[in-house]
């Protein structure tokens, strides 16, 4: 059900952990859904110098977090803000349909970390207002059927 790329990130997660005294922290999801991602960033001259993740969740949740840290390492804030959850899924070679919504939140977590950074450092990146970084967390309102028979 998962691609080899997903399985690779699950087995060998990249940049797992937490940056101490991070410049920005973004967290999304909640335990009700079974997915929580926390991304911490270090920013220098408008560039993501370091990104780390911690994730509670299924294989898709872990793989999306891991690959986001890899994809965005060394990228500018503006490039990072252009990233979508859809890009992340594509980079993994696709995700099962039922995982596209519920576990594919890593880009959102990164955007929240950037928002946090820009809120603490207003004007750090020209032309980007943290108030305009909107991450819709409709996750906890989502209702699904239960998990099926085991």
């Amino acid at each position, binding site marked *: 059900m998962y691609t080899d790329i997903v*399985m690779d990130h699950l087995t060998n997660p990249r940049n797992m952990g937490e940056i101490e005294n991070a410049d920005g922290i973004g967290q999304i999801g909640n335990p009700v859904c079974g997915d*929580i991602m926390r991304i911490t960033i270090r920013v220098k001259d408008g560039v993501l110098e370091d990104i780390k993740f911690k994730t509670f969740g299924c294989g898709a949740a872990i793989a999306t977090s891991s690959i986001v840290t890899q994809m965005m390492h060394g990228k500018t804030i503006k490039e990072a803000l252009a990233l979508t959850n859809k890009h992340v899924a594509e980079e993994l070679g696709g995700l099962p349909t039922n995982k596209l919504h519920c576990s594919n939140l890593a880009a959102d977590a990164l955007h929240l970390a950037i928002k946090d950074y820009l809120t603490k450092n207003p004007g750090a990146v020209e032309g980007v207002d943290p108030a305009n970084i909107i991450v819709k967390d409709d996750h906890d309102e989502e209702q699904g059927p239960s*998990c099926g*028979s*085991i």
Partner: protein
Amino acid sequence: MDRIYMDYSATSPLRKEALDAMMPYLTENFGNPSSIHWFGRTAKKAMEEARASIASSIGAADPSEIIITSCGSEADNLAIWGVMETYGKKHIITSAIEHHAVIDTVKILAKEGYEATYIPVDEYGLVDPEAVRNAIRPDTGLVSIMHGNNEIGTIEPIGEIAGICKEKGVLFHTDAVQTLGHIPINVQAIGADLLSFAGHKFYGPKGIGGLYVRKGIRLEPQLTGGAQERKRRAGTENVAYIIGMAKALELAIAEMPDETRHLTTLRDRLIKGLFERIPEIKLNGHPTKRLPGNVNISYKYVEGESLLLHLDMNGIAASSGSACTSGSLEPSHVLMAIGLNHETAHGSVRMSLGKYNTEQDIDKVLEVYPGIVAKLREMSPLYVKTTCARKEFCDESGTCSVNK
């Protein structure tokens, strides 16, 4: 890689003796049991012998009390709809932890104008028979309470519940899909009016099951268009599979004492070993009133699907009540019904042991599992390392100096 199968509650392999018994009826003795000629008669005779064997295996009074179905879910559907459509009563009682084949069917009834009561369970997953008594009304048509729970393995007091139903004049159905062939069942001793089962849970074939219906109970057929199964279930009978199921059941019952010893020994060793090696875990289900092969444990701070994938990479096959295994958000209704919070419910894994598991399988799990849990906890934003391994079981955890 050596693969270890620990998902026997999902399904079991077909045993050789059952396959051998089936083969002639897939090939040369292929007749339709409804045909009048030699081919038909040969098939019919073998099928009726198998039916009699199943009846005797479960302590039924007469072979005609066994209706063959395509699976356990069909048997549950037939029991519930069949009874409710026949007797004109409006109310049905079931438990909060039934298999979906029962609980979803009851939910559909409730949408179609029937009234349903879902009896809650305690923290071990046990139904209180007195709660069933109190829920029975004059218009109650059926009480359906499972025998053994498929997720947490809890064995329900169905004899007591059946007694209450009899006293109150209400029909009692039990889903025994997880228990038949694994723990002793005698339908007359239990006092069940209807009982569902499925062949592939006791080393018989998939795609075959059955419903015991006590003589005298009428049942509106759910499949129509033929006189098979005494007009209660139309369709050409799956002769070979019925024979395979009967053979597997006969052997399961003969081997049950040894099998139970084998499984409970492995089960208890696995549970004990995991508790010794992994901190902050919780056994779900009843400590003693549980299926011989069931181990269901919540691993705090980690999610079930990630655990399953890592176990699978190590050649170990298990399953999970975590929502993420299906991509929905709500964890299993069973784990929620026993009072787990979402986070704990998401981190649960079921290992169901069977005939072909060995001590070496348990050793392998105990060797690799602690590392998997540690790796995923390291990754989890919810995990806060403590020096106290028993934090969640400790009333003093708030004030405990070790924990701080």
